[in-house]
């Protein structure tokens, strides 16, 4: 039987009727229309479906929607501060050529955000390690890794400016 639950996504609250077996991915895409969340495999192996739950990157294809009640969910749609402005990670992905087909991009960006939140100045190798669960078939990863490094730099500078 369907259950009525409330989900907090990108700072807004949504009331949705879901089956207990429905994944967070399905509910975000089908019920809340956040189609920036992708589905590349459905088995936790590609990272295309990555979202943030309470500040941690998780595979939405493996998470059950009913278990997300009371948690803060963020999708790629919630990254940019406004419609006109991009998040530094997004901007860096665009400028550095880290995007080709773009299907892996939302998941990559959120994984990158997860990394940079925990480690503001990661080394090249730390970035590679952090992204190892996100597959990309187009770019060969090099430009993605560079974009994450550049975004980290920018975010660090911005936060230093704020605190000084």
């Amino acid at each position, binding site marked *: 039987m369907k259950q009525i639950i409330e989900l907090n996504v990108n700072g807004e609250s949504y009331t949705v009727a879901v089956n207990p077996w429905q994944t967070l991915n399905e509910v975000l895409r089908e019920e809340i229309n956040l189609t920036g969340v992708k589905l590349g495999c459905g088995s936790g192996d590609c990272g295309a479906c990555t979202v943030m739950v309470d500040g941690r990157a998780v595979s939405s294809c493996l998470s059950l929607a009913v278990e997300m009640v009371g948690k803060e969910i963020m999708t790629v749609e919630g990254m940019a501060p406004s419609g006109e402005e991009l998040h530094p990670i997004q901007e860096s992905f665009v*400028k550095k050529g880290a995007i080709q087909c*773009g299907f892996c991009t939302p998941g990559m960006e959120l994984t990158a955000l997860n990394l940079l939140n925990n480690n503001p100045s990661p080394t090249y190798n730390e970035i590679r*390690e952090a992204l190892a*669960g996100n597959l990309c078939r187009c770019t*060969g990863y090099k430009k993605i890794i560079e974009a994450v490094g550049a975004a980290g730099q920018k975010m660090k500078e911005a936060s230093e400016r704020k605190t000084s």
Partner: protein
Amino acid sequence: MKKDFSIVGKSVPRNDGKAKATGTATYTDDIKLPGMLHGKILRSPFPHARILNIDTSRAASLPGVKCVITGEDTPKIKYGNWRLFPDTQDEYPLAIDKVRFIGDEVAAVAAVDADTAEEALELIKVDYEELPGIFDIDSAIKEGAPVLHDYCPGNISVNRKIHYGDIEKAFAESDYVREDVFNVHAVSPAYLEPCAAVAQCDLDGRITLWTSTQVPYIVQCLLASTMGMRENDVRVIKPFVGGGFGGKMELRTWEFCAAFIAKKTGRPVKFTMTREEEFLAGRRRHAMKLYSKVGFKKDGTLTGKDLRIYLDGGGYNAMGPTATFLCGTFGAMLYRYPNYRFWGQHVYTNKPPASAMRGFGAPQSLFATESQMNIAAEELGIDPIELRIKNAQVTGDEIPDVATISSCGFIEALQKAAEMSGWKEKRYSPKPGQGIGIGCYSFISGGVFNWFNTQFPFSAAEVRVFDDGTAHLLTMAADIGQGCDTVLKQILAEELGLKMEDIRITSADTSTTPQADLGAWGSRLTMMNGNAVLDAAKKIKAQLFGAVSARQNLNVIHELGCKDGMVFPKSRPDRGIPFGEAVAMAQKANRGEPLVERGYYTPRDKGLVTPAFSFGAQISEVEVDKDTGVVRVKKFWTAHDCGTVINQMAVEGQLEGSIQMGLGYALSEQFVMEDGKTLNTNFLDYKMPNAMDVPPSEVAHIETYEPEGPMGAKEAGEGLAIPTAPAIADAVHHATGYRCKDLPITPEKILAGKKD
């Protein structure tokens, strides 16, 4: 001929970057229409079987199910991309009478949601009579082998032969003749976006299909023919596509089923494949068996080559005929073979159909060429790079009856790669457990062949310009991630002297973008659509120049130009008129008619293959663990010739992506199959390189100017998928003494074959 460019040659960020970075880019599966049904496909559990009966009644009566179809409900019209040769069109959208591989499509269901459709599949009862299956080339071509298709008793569906010179004489006169057998395996394109299609039917019975495809026009035509409809009554729109690499270049079952059921039910229908379906039944690169024999003089001069290839085609032809043809073409590329003989045969087996995949026959054919070149170099006692330089093709070379090479930076690429990598040092004073190796490539810039039998030019572009100084480019070219929207905009911006942001682009909608385009494959878009865009832009300029010339009362001998948003006489750049004003003048002169031009390109008199070839060399350095046999690639150096680089960043991205794919092809990716069943149907077991696996790489662009290409450009990115496997194989041999002739290169093979 080199020019100073303002936008061409720069690293211009892609057109759709923001949409993709923010998640607002709409891919096919993101589309939702009111009343939309969800479809699922029932697939064959047997590799080879006769269908005796299908009972769909229980499925049809499941609440929520709106439609169930089998092959019997359809018009039973076969399709395939080789329309010119209807015999090769061997596939029905849904199986009729027989299934030929595990995963072959048998029936389709559309229901109010995906779960219900899935449940209904289990209620369809199919009675099969199992038939003996064949799972490899040798058993398929044996006398008395089970037959897959009645029309094709020996299971060989395509024969392609090339022969020039006198190959037997060449071998007789050679000082050294080398014969090898190579086996290469099938791999998945593994695009991140699984295939999907959404169809809608209007009240007049016309179909609109949104689909994840590389070839909107081909899908339009073949969908119309299999549905028994007129082409103009089918509209195909390509939304954002999450990669294709050759795997999305045909009409596919779910496209047909979505359209057919939409027409039947009057409701929109969506089909989305799962990753499991993609691996179980999806298109793949051909496995092949290659017999190659080459002859040399003592000094290393090539005398000739005899190449025999069998392609493991799977249950249907798919793009196999083209791959068969191209294998033979690529076999004669890179080096000067005064005598050449090729015989390629496409073989049916009870496995998922192989088709096009990045390189289209070349990664396989050139794996043999390049590996054999390295073997020969060793046995002749000549450095492999020297041996290549000695025999390398150069600008102006003719491949008899096939093509003339109009630009070629191969020798320069070889020299550059050697220099960048420190080849001499590493090759001749190797460290224990380490090795360095080389592989090269050449590729086509689109095909000149027209097996699809299009009645339109190969590519088309429409350019509209406006008095506010902007332009609108319309093209059917399909951007599937490779970035052609951006490249075509760059070409137009350069030619009209506009900025990227002045140009709006509409692409890949068969009802609004100009007829026609054969699609994104064979590295054809920069060359073909770039030329069409240039053609349209030149016609626009002629109109603008006429109007400006009249207004300024210029002497007819003045040449005009467009740059930085101005139209001006070249002798008097100061007397320029803003682009928008020039448009307004031309429009006035035409009594208000908008300024719109169309440009076209069809390669003519360009031989049998392509208008232009790319070239390049790649060197890889590896380290092999002597106890485990595990290969770690330390670095790649690539030097490549793609003519004029239109977009630096995009070309680098193509190269880096190719390395990822080439690395997987060489070392880790393969289908694990048992009696026609694919056992590894997820990314955990199908090992595609991740960010940790891809080593650093360095690249050099060898500058050439391709006279046939737009602004001197030619192919970039597909050919680069070729050299990686032979380069790694050579490096592994250098490190261990094990020469791989049987891809992929696994630790087990290395441990069994190493020489120290």
